[in-house]
């Protein structure tokens, strides 16, 4: 039974992956990736990684893909087709690179001589891969990576807001000279009620007051 589920999930995962790189519309690419992620979660379940499988479906196939769908619907309109197919030699070269990579990985992993590769893994002990076991590991042995990951998320969120905010003067200044930003701008004293947050809200012109 597990063999049948493995092959169904593996074929689903590989089909989804091929769909991501073959489909032309970015929206369909995102949908193919959702299918791929759900198939991969089934493979994780077969490997007894229950918590990771649940996190994969909830976080990846749920939250991250919703982010993608939002950006695709914001950026990719049909009037401006994005990502035309490249020239034929480039495609062939990429295909050859992919084949070479598969051969290299097969040789590296399957030819490594690890004896347990030909087995179904270590004997299963109850509780392996449950949220309890993962949580215990995260809060004891892997406390430092856990905390660093939370800081990384914070930095990424702040960075994304800084990158994607609406900058007054930058959008309109494209015809003329784009305003330059230097390090000294950070040190210059600002009047109260201005600054990057006010600019992000689009309320205050730069240098207005």
């Amino acid at each position, binding site marked *: 039974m597990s*063999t049948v589920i*493995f092959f169904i999930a*593996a074929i689903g995962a*590989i089909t989804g*992956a*091929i769909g*991501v*790189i073959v489909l032309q519309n*970015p929206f369909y690419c995102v949908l193919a*990736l959702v299918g*791929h992620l759900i198939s*991969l979660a089934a*493979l*994780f379940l077969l*490997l007894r*990684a229950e*918590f*990771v499988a649940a*996190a*994969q479906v909830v976080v*990846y196939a749920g939250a*991250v893909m919703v*982010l*993608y769908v939002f*950006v*695709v619907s914001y*950026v*990719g309109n049909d009037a401006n087709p994005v*990502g035309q197919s*490249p020239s034929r030699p*480039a495609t062939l*070269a*990429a*295909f050859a*690179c*992919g084949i070479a*990579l*598969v051969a290299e990985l097969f040789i590296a*992993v399957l030819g490594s001589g690890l004896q*347990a*590769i*030909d087995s*179904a*893994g*270590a004997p*299963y002990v109850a509780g*392996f891969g449950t949220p309890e076991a*993962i949580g215990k590991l*995260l809060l004891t042995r*892997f406390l430092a990576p*856990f905390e660093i*990951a939370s800081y*990384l*998320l914070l*930095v990424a969120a702040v960075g994304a807001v800084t*990158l*994607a905010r609406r*900058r007054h003067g930058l*959008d309109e200044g494209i015809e003329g000279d*784009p305003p330059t930003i230097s390090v000294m701008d950070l040190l210059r004293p600002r009047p109260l009620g201005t600054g990057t947050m006010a600019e992000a809200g689009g309320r205050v012109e730069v240098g207005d007051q």
Partner: protein
Amino acid sequence: MNIGWYLAVSALIFAIGAGGVLVRRNPLVILLCLELMLNAANLALIGFSRMWGNGDGQVFALIVMVVAACEVTVGLGLIVAMHRRRLPIDVDEMRELQG
């Protein structure tokens, strides 16, 4: 199923993702292909975790998922910023680092 089968699937998905990064020119799809490669690595990590009967690989996979989420957030922020400035959404056109 033997662990080797999972590793083979992982290698295939990784190569498909790498080929997609090389072929596609839309930065959104390149980000999706990076996700494919990260997920292939996750599958290999969880396969090895099962092989040793040890939860460390699953914790590693969770951390990789966090890093992937960060990468997606920053990458999509960059794409939105490119769209706001009416730059072409095409990696071949993005040759200059200065805005």
